């Protein structure tokens, strides 16, 4: 198996066979470049489908996923790489695939990950007109608070809890505690 062979040279952990033609695994940050080169040049995974970044704020990491595709076998590898959330830096791979530069620009803009040496990294894709807030896709960025402070809210906007609102509209005489009991499963299966 190819994965067994890779395991001899790389620290491959958390292998997960999602479905027949899609496998995920995790490698450390330092081995990422060699892993991509090996898969691209020796195992025919020539196509980089996308890079995504996930903010795993509970673990204190950003999880980057590089998705590689093999045209011959229709098989995809999703390679995870955890990088430190406080010191969000990653190697740039734009020399392997040119389109990587665009993904890295987006990750820099939305999550604030620095890719040293990536082309046009400081140019924003969508956050134009002098954005000075933090990267908006970080989970500790409070978008509602930012909106309240920046834009003008119209008075009179009321938000209802759907369950409470429906109970008051449809069954106003029904006691609140009873309805909660029923809606939460009420002990009976």
């Amino acid at each position, binding site marked *: 198996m190819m994965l067994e062979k890779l395991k001899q040279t790389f620290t491959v952990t958390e292998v997960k066979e999602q479905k027949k033609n899609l496998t995920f695994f995790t490698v450390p940050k330092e081995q990422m470049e060699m892993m991509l080169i090996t898969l691209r040049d020796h195992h025919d995974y020539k196509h980089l489908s996308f890079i995504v970044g996930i903010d795993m704020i509970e673990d204190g990491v950003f999880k980057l996923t590089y998705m590689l595709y093999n045209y011959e076998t229709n098989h995809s590898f999703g390679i995870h790489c955890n990088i430190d959330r406080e010191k969000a830096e990653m190697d740039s791979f734009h020399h392997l695939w040119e389109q990587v530069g665009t993904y890295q620009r987006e990750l820099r803009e939305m999550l604030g990950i620095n890719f040293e040496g990536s082309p046009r990294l400081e140019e924003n894709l969508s956050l*134009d*007109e002098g954005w000075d807030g933090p990267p908006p896709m970080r989970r500790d960025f409070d978008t509602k608070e930012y909106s309240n402070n*920046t*834009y003008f809210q*119209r008075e009179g906007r009321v938000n209802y809890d759907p369950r409470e609102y429906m109970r008051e509209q449809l069954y106003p005489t029904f006691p609140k505690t009873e309805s909660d009991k029923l809606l939460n499963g009420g002990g009976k299966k």
Partner: protein
Amino acid sequence: MSSKDLLPNDGLSEIDQEFFCQAPPEYISPLPKPIEDFMNWARSESLFILAFGTGCGAIELRPLTTSRFDMYQYGIQMRATPRQSSVFIVGGYASVKTLKRIVRSYEQMQGPKFVVTLGSCPINGGMYWDSYNTINRIDHYLPIDISICGCMPRPESILAGFVELKKMIRAGQCDGANLYAKNFAWYKANQKRIIKDWNMPDYNW
């Protein structure tokens, strides 16, 4: 006009400054009533929409031009340039990036000009009310004449809105260009509050 009344245009480089107007917009007082009424009637019967689609509402404008809804029967048609149009349609949510283009296009139109908004997003933010890059109330940045609500409004309701707009124009209630000129400093301050790298003229017609 004293130099104190001139616009600073400080977003422009020195070479560019002479290409743009430095005079702020002026209040145009109406003509004597019978003439103004006749002019308003004429304006209401030939509404030229600027073909500028913002947000998802622009897709509902396309059926209006086709034979099923046929907006030409009401004297409404599309123009490709702001210099020839009199109606500006904000078709849905406006992000900060779009607002910059909206302001530029609106200011390039000649008065009297009317602004129609479609959908709930320009009224109170709609489903994007807590978003970090979508403005909530367009009426703080531009004078609005009529808002057609819905998410999105169907072509029938847009037509109904236009009929209402024509009634308002004929009654002389649509005075957006003058309102903009009167409260120019307030509108500009609101616009500059969110468009932070202001690199365009302060008033560009």
